[in-house]
């Protein structure tokens, strides 16, 4: 599979062969590396530097303040509140779409027709832009004309009807439901791909041993899917830390700070309040959280292969 190594023969052909093999190799990497270093690595280093200053974006000189921004993070009530919302988002937004995807996947796998149609339909919301998802769900949650309140009134639960996004206790769950709607099709497709590899002999053996449907599901199918499930869990967690668009368009983090998450809070600090230094420190918090969860993801992916 790999190259014939450029050894042997005269030194002149050796050099030309070296250029042939390695020269081409480096030349192929160079353009990508240059673009990547300038537009990702360099700003990343700058981000660390910014986070050690109290720059406001306008001063000609960036004033070095050491770890002051990081000290401020610890006592920033709004940051901890935002992180709490991310945590709720990650827990609800990971468990529910995976559970729905698993449920639908197993239902289809147990011999239903129309696989292609169901898959196409379930995946449809996944391709929509966040702004479109936000407009759809803003409409569903509309206090007067929204489908949710209309439905509640229709089935005689009109007393439960409310402005879902205007109420601090319901706003965050309402956003998460919208996010789940836009995501469970993705979980379904990935789980379905995993189900194709579940060995039918194993399931059959369990049936002969007297396992009922639920036992087969828990003791045979779930363990067979464990790689797929861990992978999709970490992938969803990574997304849960950086969620932005749906919150920004639907509630702007409001009412008050009831739906503020770390990404919208960072955006507000850096681009609306011009606290560049502090915003950079906030973005470092996101970096660390993302590094940890994606490190886990990559290790799991390598192990699964």
């Amino acid at each position, binding site marked *: *599979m*790999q190259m*014939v190594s450029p050894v042997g023969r005269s030194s002149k052909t050796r050099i030309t062969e070296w250029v*042939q*093999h*390695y020269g*081409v190799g480096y030349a*192929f*990497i160079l*353009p*990508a*590396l240059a673009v*990547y270093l300038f*537009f*990702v690595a360099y*700003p990343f280093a700058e981000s660390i*530097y910014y986070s050690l200053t109290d720059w406001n974006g306008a001063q000609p000189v960036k004033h070095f303040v050491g770890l002051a921004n990081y000290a401020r993070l610890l006592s920033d009530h709004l940051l901890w509140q935002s992180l709490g919302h991310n945590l709720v988002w990650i827990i609800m937004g990971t468990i529910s779409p995976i559970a729905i995807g698993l*449920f639908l996947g*197993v*239902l*289809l796998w147990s*011999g*239903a027709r*129309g696989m292609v*149609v169901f898959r196409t*339909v379930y995946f*449809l*919301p*996944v*391709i*929509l*832009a*966040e*702004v*479109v998802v936000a*407009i*759809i*769900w803003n*409409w*569903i949650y509309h206090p007067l*004309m929204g*489908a949710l309140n*209309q439905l509640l009134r229709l089935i005689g639960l009109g007393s439960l009807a409310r402005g879902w996004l205007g109420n601090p206790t319901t706003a965050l769950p309402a956003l998460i439901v919208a996010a789940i*709607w836009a995501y469970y099709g*993705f979980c379904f*497709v990935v789980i379905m*791909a995993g189900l194709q590899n579940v060995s*039918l002999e194993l*399931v*059959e053996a369990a049936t002969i041993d007297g396992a009922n449907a*639920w036992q*087969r599901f828990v003791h045979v*199918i779930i363990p067979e899917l464990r790689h797929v499930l861990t992978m999709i869990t970490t992938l969803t967690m990574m997304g849960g830390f*950086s969620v932005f668009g749906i919150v*920004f368009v639907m509630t702007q983090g409001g009412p008050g700070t009831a739906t503020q998450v770390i990404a919208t809070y*960072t955006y507000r600090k850096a*681009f609306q309040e011009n606290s560049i230094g502090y915003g950079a420190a906030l*973005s470092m918090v*996101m970096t660390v959280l*993302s590094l940890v969860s994606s490190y886990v993801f990559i290790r799991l992916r390598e192990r699964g292969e």
Partner: protein
Amino acid sequence: MAMTAQRIRGVRRRRPARYWVFKFFQYGALIFFALLCIIPLFWIVSTAFKTTAEVAANPLGPPPELHWQNFVQAWVQGRFGKYLRNSIYVSVPIVLGVLGLACLAGYSFARFKLPGGNIIFYVFLLGLMVPFQSIMIPLFYILKDIGFLGTYWAMIMPSIALGLPFSIFFLRAFFLALPWELADAALIDGCDEVGVFWKVMLPLAGPGISSLAVFQFMGAWNSFLLPLIYMQKEELRPLVLGLMFFRNQYTQNYPLTMAGATIVMLPIVVVYVIFQRKFIQGLTAGAIKG
């Protein structure tokens, strides 16, 4: 759940009542979740065809008659034609840029055991773990300093750079799985390394490249935070961003907002339904192997 018994025992001639109860719940649940995906989209499109008064009278039902003027008004006042062009002008270069650079680099990592190659590969992998938010603030000032801010390049170049780590990771794995005897045979036949890449191996990677193209295209097309920060100028806005400002401008005019949303959503939905297999393959490329 997990009623695989029928499949395993084979089809029986006379099915017990339990079977039909199961089938009822099976299809009931499958159809329920399918409707959950479709009906909200139907509301968007149907609202777009109503007048404001009709929406207030009957917000959820089908439109009594088709009023096309919302679409005309949205298209003209919302400048969606302009935003559509902007989306194309940035998405196409992003996809081509990412694919071009990542094919070269991914191939190189798979083909040559370069001294230091592993270290460079890990540097790229590190980028897989860094969210856009960790670089968005300084990148704004860098783009400003090099004069990209206020041009399409402000979105194109960062998006290419951010798309590279995953694409290289993905393509390297794809190239590694190809039959390399063909490359060696071509070398013996007098082909040089560039020729081996271009004429032999790259065509073999077609399926992987097209999946990646879909992935990158959808990422660029639906990208939101990046243009929100770097494409603030009205005449640069891509569709998604244009839609958000349009909605903020006509908050109370629901039919008009929905007409805008339909214009943004419909082309992608149509293309998706036609090429659903490729779309699903591409968008799950990171989570499903190969």
